[in-house]
């Protein structure tokens, strides 16, 4: 007999079906071996799959929601799922089947359904009754983006101060050209020498 757990948020519900890992002395109501999951969004076709699909789909939603908020281009593309923003309010989801000759499932959801779905995934992540391997669902904050930002900031911190210092030095020293011209001085000295010579003779 398999266990079923339901995570519900307004118009979205996520059902997780699986078994406890008895070899780890887990409780009867625990789920560690997920055999199936179903994401039901009101007025939309049912989304279901195996455990290997759940992680990438959850990650796709988390990464996409981050891009959406951070004023970056909200596009997520992978072998399994594409999410793009039609506009500020509507999101276009394309779920691609791993089976051949099966057309991709296209869904359009609004911000309200997007937040319901994210909240269902959050409930699953936080549930003590479901144990998901860490490699299945990674941290929702894209580390690559964070690292890139830090790297950029460090680069600018390293590069900008000496650059400004060199520029200001050039600007400052260029003003002295008006006070001292070496060519003018040489010409003046030559003229003086020429004037002195006839007197000497």
């Amino acid at each position, binding site marked *: 007999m398999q266990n079923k757990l339901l995570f519900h948020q*307004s118009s979205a519900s996520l059902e997780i079906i699986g078994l406890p890992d008895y070899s780890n002395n887990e409780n009867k109501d625990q789920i560690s071996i997920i055999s199936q999951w179903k994401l039901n969004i009101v007025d939309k076709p049912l989304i279901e799959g195996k455990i290997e699909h759940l992680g990438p789909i959850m990650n796709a939603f988390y990464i996409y*929601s*981050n891009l*959406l*908020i*951070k*004023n970056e281009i909200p596009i997520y593309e992978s072998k399994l799922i594409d999410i793009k923003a039609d506009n*500020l*309010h*509507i999101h276009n989801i394309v779920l691609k089947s791993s089976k051949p000759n099966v057309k991709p499932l296209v869904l359009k959801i*609004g*911000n*309200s359904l*997007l*937040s*319901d779905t*994210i*909240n269902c995934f*959050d*409930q699953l*992540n*936080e549930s003590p009754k479901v144990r998901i391997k860490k490699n299945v669902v990674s941290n*929702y*904050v894209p580390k690559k983006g*964070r690292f890139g*930002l830090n790297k950029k900031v460090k680069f600018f911190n390293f590069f900008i101060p000496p650059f400004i210092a060199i520029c200001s030095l050039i600007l400052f020293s260029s003003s002295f050209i008006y006070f001292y011209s070496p060519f003018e001085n040489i010409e003046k000295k030559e003229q003086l020498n020429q004037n002195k010579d006839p007197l000497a003779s």
Partner: protein
Amino acid sequence: MTIWKLRNNNPLRKSYVTNNIKLNEFDALIRVTVEMSKYLYPYIREILKSKEDIEENSVIWNDFNKRFIELIKERFNIDSMRVKKLLNQAENEEIIIKSLLILSFCISNQGYQKLKNFLHDF
């Protein structure tokens, strides 16, 4: 009371104090925001939804936007460029939607950490 007083640290207000808020006060504000988001999630969701099908259900969005602008005019320094941007209906839509989305994504038990991450990334 202390948290309520912290609202005066907002430089967009008509009168504000220039003190820097402490880390524990910042944390407290985030916790209050997350708890309020949990409580107000059904309303936040309805506002977002009303904007999705604006032709059918524009009443909620219009009411919210009207009240938002009223509150800003009442309490914020309307000479500031940033406040003017909030009042401009052509520009404020994106700011409002994104703010509501952030709040709606942070209603879980780990919402405090999520909101903190979002704010650090700004």
